[in-house]
């Protein structure tokens, strides 16, 4: 069907696929990408599909086995309804029942949310990606199949919907066509949170039907609890890599710094996303340099889970979320630290600090702080000396949704950037109005099937357009290095992949990295050239 014609009730249609993204209908990019042509999102072959459902838009980032018989389909629908009733009951959904009910009941269909959603906008306004489309499917199902007398009312109100296998399988896909960036929730005059609704749908599918993306579950929270990290990094491997990191730090700076581990009673337990250990060692090395030169009492943990701040449960499953955050709290409690500082990882901020408040209770109620605030204190109060001239190149910053919109941490990182980067400039819009990198809610780590093109062409496109817009035409020339600060491991992964997809190193010499690297790059106690400019960053 065409992007404009699909209606909410069409979700139940017994057609193989409801919609196909057409790259020609995507919103064009600004200078110097007016001529940019995106490849089509390749349909998956029968062999690749291997009996799995892609009935929404032909794109797969969550694996949904297609039931073989009508009876199996009915069984899945019945399970879905059981799960839905649980979502709507206090005993089974004490975590999010209230905002769920408010969001289900209060929508006035003004569609203000649609204008705020980068996926809907960049798709060329394809109906299925409108935030209200997904929410209305859920709302209609609740009204018709859960509320008393709903089946009768549905016929009169015109808000009818059929609940069948097509409906629920497409709903599961729809829940994974949202970055959970909650820009829509921020703009809603009624306080409706479509992001929360998408996340509750994900939760229902994970907790009741065992359907969730491999990257988040099997290779995510399960692996983290079993090996210590979603990356599979075990404590012995961590120690080996950290020995190398100390050598590497010495090669880069000439400094001899011992990275502290498991120091009981330290003031600060710093928790990084384990992605830093494997993909961005400069980030964890920069934190070590900054904290050591500032003379802080700090430590990392080598306990299982204690060295990986990741908690993908936040994106899809309350039980998995709770298991991981409990493990984090126990590590902090055992070490007896005065506070936990969360490194440059957005969703870990929300998992450990905001949502964590419900789990880190009693003796585990250890103060938790954003590294943005820690860095602000060190720079603004001049606990380390800096020479901003070393950062005299164009710099803009991306705002990780979970740090900014979800938690309101806006100014600490900006006060640092304004002080240490003479050519700092904002993206438009920014702060709580920022756009997601397009990798939010786990999309950044979903690299299989035909999903990467979808994430680069729709949500990632909005961020890439913003990145281009932050620089003048002259600055965009490839002769000039420019830096996109992205203080979050997930966002960094996505921005790295966007730069690669859009060939933005070759075309514009656009580089990305964290905030602490910019600090260390201009610290007078560190020799010049900490940031390396190259294609293979």
């Amino acid at each position, binding site marked *: 069907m065409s992007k404009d014609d699909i209606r909410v009730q069409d979700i139940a249609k017994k057609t193989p696929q409801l919609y196909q993204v057409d790259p020609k209908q995507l919103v064009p990019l600004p200078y110097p990408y007016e001529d940019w042509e995106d490849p089509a999102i390749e349909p998956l072959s029968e*062999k*690749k599909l*291997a009996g799995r459902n892609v009935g929404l838009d032909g794109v797969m980032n969550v694996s949904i086995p297609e039931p073989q018989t009508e009876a199996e389909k009915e069984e899945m629908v019945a399970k879905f309804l059981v799960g839905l009733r649980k979502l709507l009951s206090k005993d089974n959904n004490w975590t999010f029942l209230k905002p769920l009910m408010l969001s289900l009941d209060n929508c006035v269909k003004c569609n203000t949310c649609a204008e705020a959603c980068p996926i809907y906008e960049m798709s060329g306004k394809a109906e299925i990606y409108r935030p209200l489309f997904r929410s209305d499917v859920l709302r209609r199902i609740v009204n018709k199949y859960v509320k008393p007398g709903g089946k009768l009312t549905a016929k009169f109100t015109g808000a009818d919907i059929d609940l069948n296998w097509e409906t629920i399988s497409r709903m599961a896909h729809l829940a994974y066509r949202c970055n959970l960036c909650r820009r829509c929730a921020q703009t809603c005059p009624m306080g409706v949170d479509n992001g929360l609704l998408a996340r509750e749908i994900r939760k229902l599918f994970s907790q009741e039907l065992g359907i969730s993306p491999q*990257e988040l579950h099997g*290779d*995510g929270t399960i*692996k*983290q609890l079993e*090996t210590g*990290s*979603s*990356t*599979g*990094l*075990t404590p*012995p*491997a961590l120690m*080996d*890599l950290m020995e*190398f990191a100390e050598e*590497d730090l010495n090669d880069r700076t000439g400094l001899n710094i011992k990275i502290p581990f498991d120091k009981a009673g330290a003031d600060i337990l710093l928790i990084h*996303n*384990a*992605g830093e*250990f*494997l*993909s961005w*060692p400069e980030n964890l090395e920069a934190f070590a340099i900054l904290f050591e030169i500032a003379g802080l009492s700090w430590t990392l943990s080598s306990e299982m889970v204690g060295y*990986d701040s*990741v908690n993908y449960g936040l994106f899809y499953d309350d039980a998995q979320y709770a298991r991981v955050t409990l493990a984090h709290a126990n590590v902090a409690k055992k070490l007896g630290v005065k506070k936990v500082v969360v490194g440059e*990882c957005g969703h870990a901020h929300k998992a450990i600090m905001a949502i964590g408040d419900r789990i880190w209770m009693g003796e585990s109620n250890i103060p938790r702080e954003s590294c943005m605030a820690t860095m602000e204190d060190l720079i603004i109060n001049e606990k380390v000396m800096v020479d901003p001239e070393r950062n005299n190149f164009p710099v803009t910053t991306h705002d990780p949704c979970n740090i900014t919109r979800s938690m309101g941490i806006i100014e600490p990182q900006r006060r640092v950037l304004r002080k240490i980067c003479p050519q700092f400039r904002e993206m438009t819009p920014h702060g709580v109005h920022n756009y997601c990198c397009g990798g939010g809610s786990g999309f*950044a*780590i979903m*690299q*299989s*099937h035909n999903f990467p093109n979808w994430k680069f062409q729709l949500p990632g496109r909005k961020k890439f357009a913003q990145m281009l817009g932050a620089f003048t035409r002259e600055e965009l020339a490839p002769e000039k290095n420019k830096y996109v600060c992205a203080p979050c*491991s*997930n966002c960094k*992964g996505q921005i790295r992949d966007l730069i690669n997809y859009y060939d933005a190193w070759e075309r514009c010499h656009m580089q990305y990295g964290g905030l602490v690297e910019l600090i260390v790059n201009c610290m007078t106690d560190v020799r010049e050239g900490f940031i390396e400019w190259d294609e*293979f960053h």
Partner: protein
Amino acid sequence: MPTFTHGDVSIEVDEDGFMEDPESWNEEIAKALATTEGVEELSEEHWKLVNYLRDYWLKFGIAPMIRKLCKETGFPLKKVYELFPSGPAKGACKVAGLSKPTGCV
């Protein structure tokens, strides 16, 4: 689960062509997997990289950070891409029979 077949080699791989059972890796499998990366013949330099990754994985159950790989093999990253065009993680690790990288990497 997809099966990858090349010559006498027949192994189970994941969606992205990484071995499902990394324990069963051998040199014949490496040669077969290399063809999926556009590498028809594994040179001494290819083997140096593959063996380094393999040894590290056997010891620690994971691939090392790329910077460590470059330093300890003496190959700059550019060279790694020349040897395995899809890069160290997607190319070299696959040929060395490692599992697909997971987490925020």
